[in-house]
């Protein structure tokens, strides 16, 4: 798994929205996707994942719906809403600005 990194405040929302932009997923799926996509840098435990999911749902950016898995068990699948897509565009823009700024600072240092 490699070394894990603490998540920046607010980054989790961006990661979840980005993940759900591609396809609806349930909790386990989201955790897997994030770990996979970041090559194990970010591992999201349920203690932070679920509060984040519910917070995003409360704001109307994602919606959850129960459906059957292939294994026959039930799981809640989250999908992104139009408001969520708008929010994602904003978050991406923010992130880019921040990361460029941080990289500049780092470049100056070295």
């Amino acid at each position, binding site marked *: 798994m490699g070394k894990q990194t603490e998540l920046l405040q607010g980054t989790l929302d961006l990661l979840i929205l980005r993940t759900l932009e591609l396809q609806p997923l*349930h909790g386990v799926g989201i955790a897997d996707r994030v770990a996979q996509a970041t090559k194990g840098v970010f591992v999201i435990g349920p203690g932070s994942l*679920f509060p984040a999911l519910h917070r995003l749902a409360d704001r109307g950016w994602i919606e959850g719906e129960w459906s059957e898995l292939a294994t026959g*068990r039930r*799981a809640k699948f989250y999908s992104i809403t139009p408001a969520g897509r708008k929010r994602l565009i904003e978050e991406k823009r923010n992130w880019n600005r921040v990361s460029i700024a941080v990289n500049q600072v780092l470049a100056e240092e070295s």
Partner: protein
Amino acid sequence: MNLKRIFQRLRNRGRADADLEEEIASFYDGMQARRIEAGLTPGEARRETRAEFGSPARVVEAVRDSRVEAVLETAIQDIRYAWRGLRRNPGFAAVAVLTLALGIGANSAIYSLMESILLRSLPVAGAESLVVLNWHSRPPRDGGKDWVHVMQSVSGFAWKGGHGSYVSGMFPYGAFETLREENGSLSVLFGHFRAGDRTLSIGGAASSAGGEYVTGEYFRALAVRPAAGRLIGPEDDKPGAPPVAVVSFATSQNRFGGPAKAVGQPILVDNVPFTVVGVAPPEFRGVDPAWEPGVYLPLRANLLLDGSGAASMYGNGNFYWIELMGRLRPGVTLEQAQSAMAPRFRQWVSTTATTDGERAKLPELLLTPGAGGLNSLRRDYSKPLYVLLAMVGLILTIACANIANLLLARASARRREISVRLSLGASRWRVVRQLITESLLLASLGGILGVVLAHWGTQWLTVLLTNGRENFTLGAGLNWFVLAATAALTMLCGLLFGLAPALQATRPDVMPALKNGRAGEPRGWTQQALVVAQLALSLIVLVAAGLFVRTLNNLHSVQLGYARENILLFSVDARKAGHRDPEIVNFYSGLRRRFEAIPGVSGATLSQSSLIRAGHARGAMKVGETTVEGTRVLVTGANFHSTMRIPMLYGREIDDRDQPGSAPVAVISERLARTYFDGRNPIGHRIAFLKEKRELEIVGVSANLRYGSLKGENPMTVFIAASQVSLRGMTYALRTAGDPLRHASNIRDIVKEADSRIPVTNIVSQAAEIDRTIGQEVAFAKLCTGFAALALLISCIGLYGTMSCAVARRINEIGIRMALGARRGAVVWMVLRRVLVLVLIGIAISVPAALAASQLVESLLFETKPNDPAILALAGVILAGAGILAGYLPARRASKIDPLVALRHE
């Protein structure tokens, strides 16, 4: 924020929780399933998943805590917990809620009175742009005794302003006409004056109502809309205009059966026919809260109603009688209007001065905000109300200190519980919040009960303070304004008495408390300080009560010089029903004889007013060659002195021998006789009233009596025969056996039989009439005694609680002392000594404060010095006595301690 979603979740909490738990469970299932696929047994998979992610329950909690409504839920939880805590301790809760309710209720009641008197606006559109016109000058009688002022006569009020100035709201008509032309700053100027009590006859039935004369602009300027018909306009206020009247909404309902039925109806005002053209709206009750008109008449209707003198009022620039108000033009400030109008008034008023003395103190115009209407009530009541508010403020402070004390005691009892919660990881803030919730809950319960008490209290206070005064528009009651103030006060109290105990109880040093269940604060300094504060504040309230009770006693023990009991008073005005000289004299004396014949009535007489309200001077008079000023003159019918039990020293009283045709007579008081006849018998001598150019023969000398206000003096008094002067309304006095008021209906019947157009007004016993004039003092004495008892009670509860705690804390020490041979008496003394020390510290702190505070109420006292040492001593003794009483119970309990039990207690 998806409010719909949150709202649904709140409405269906159970299902939302189940849904969340299932969601988390399915996550854990998924993770476990993956591990089973990887070859672990179900048990191992379960353990490993939990090891990695923690328990599902904690995840559920984390989600719940992150929700928006979580704050609300913890608050609800806190409230439930606090409620359970209070239910477990019903005695504590009852004492706390009750003391708080009394404190808050008293505050709200006083505040609602203040709101209605001092703060409320007139119920008219744009009240904030209204202004009231007053003037101020040096007093007419400064230095010498003579009246020197352009205001040579006045009908209305004048009062003392700041810096010894003399202020009035009355103007001559000429000033109104002049200022009306200065219309740059006021869009409209209007006038009005009290028409006094008038007899309204409608369809043959007569009753009395307050009247108000208004100029044609009055209603338009106040932006009042009629409830029916039309209101008085400029066309009605002209000499010779058809006589019209506007009646108040209440009059229309009581006398006509509704506003619509009143319009167009004929009405007799003092037997003069008018036509009702309209009805004022229900909320409008005139511009003076102390005068609620039942009928509004055009200004110049006084030419029809008030006889020959009325016409001269308009042209006389030295007679002050009309009150003026105006409306500022948009954008004009009060100061701008003042500086625009004042020179104009100054110029006009200087033309009315005829001597240098008058010119030296010309009135200056003074504009004041008129949103609240006239401020006559505010002048009379603002100081008493502030004093009462200060008193109830003190009571509430005592109550808060008391509850803080009870909470402290409770907190030390709960220290263990709190320490356990703190050491189990509850944050300090969380526990403080819990404790504050508890005190806010207490405060809210107290506040709610307080509002109920305030509702009654306000009605009671209104009766107490207005004390039979009629025409009052004081609509004091609980409105949103008062309720909001009460709510704010309640929350403030909750925080005030909750915060300190909460912070103290959660101090970080939890370990000692855990080790030792009982140890709280080592000596309970905070508690003792709070008790001392309560005692000190109580002393102030006690001293105030003492001062006001003393004042009332002094007023009650004033030597009147005439009978107070078994006298019935009532007023009849035959002139308003059309009786004229000389027939009116016979009418009045005929009535007197019929009253005298009532079984159970041993005497009947009449005078122009009751003695306690008498205040008439009749200008200067001459005794021999000496001019005498300041004598009081009362017009009386036959048998006045014998009915009123005023002793005659020489000669005879006025009786039926004195007829219109016979020689004019007078009875003088002893003081006048002593001052101007030194030693000689005045009988047969003559006195003369300069203005009337009439000589009267002195036929009798009566003993001195308290004429007019109880607080006044016994002035030189002259009684003249009613049969020999022109009469208006008269007040009859009957001497009765037993309760005077039981003759009331009999009297009404007799008057109705004599002339059905005349209403009998103001039927009252002499004792009640006198008490009415000291209503404020009676109210203060009653209220403050109540307040003092309340303060004392609350403080004693505090003292009792503190001493009980102290005894409990020192149980070991007391046990040891007793084991070593201390006697019970010594133990009682040990505790009482502590009580006495606290009481003495309280008194020591509070005596200077009480002395300073009592200076502030000096103007409300009568023949009582504010720093009366006897009252101070009495208050101290009462406080110490109550303190010892409260401390005795814990002291006795301490002395009953069994040394063995106490030592085993550890």
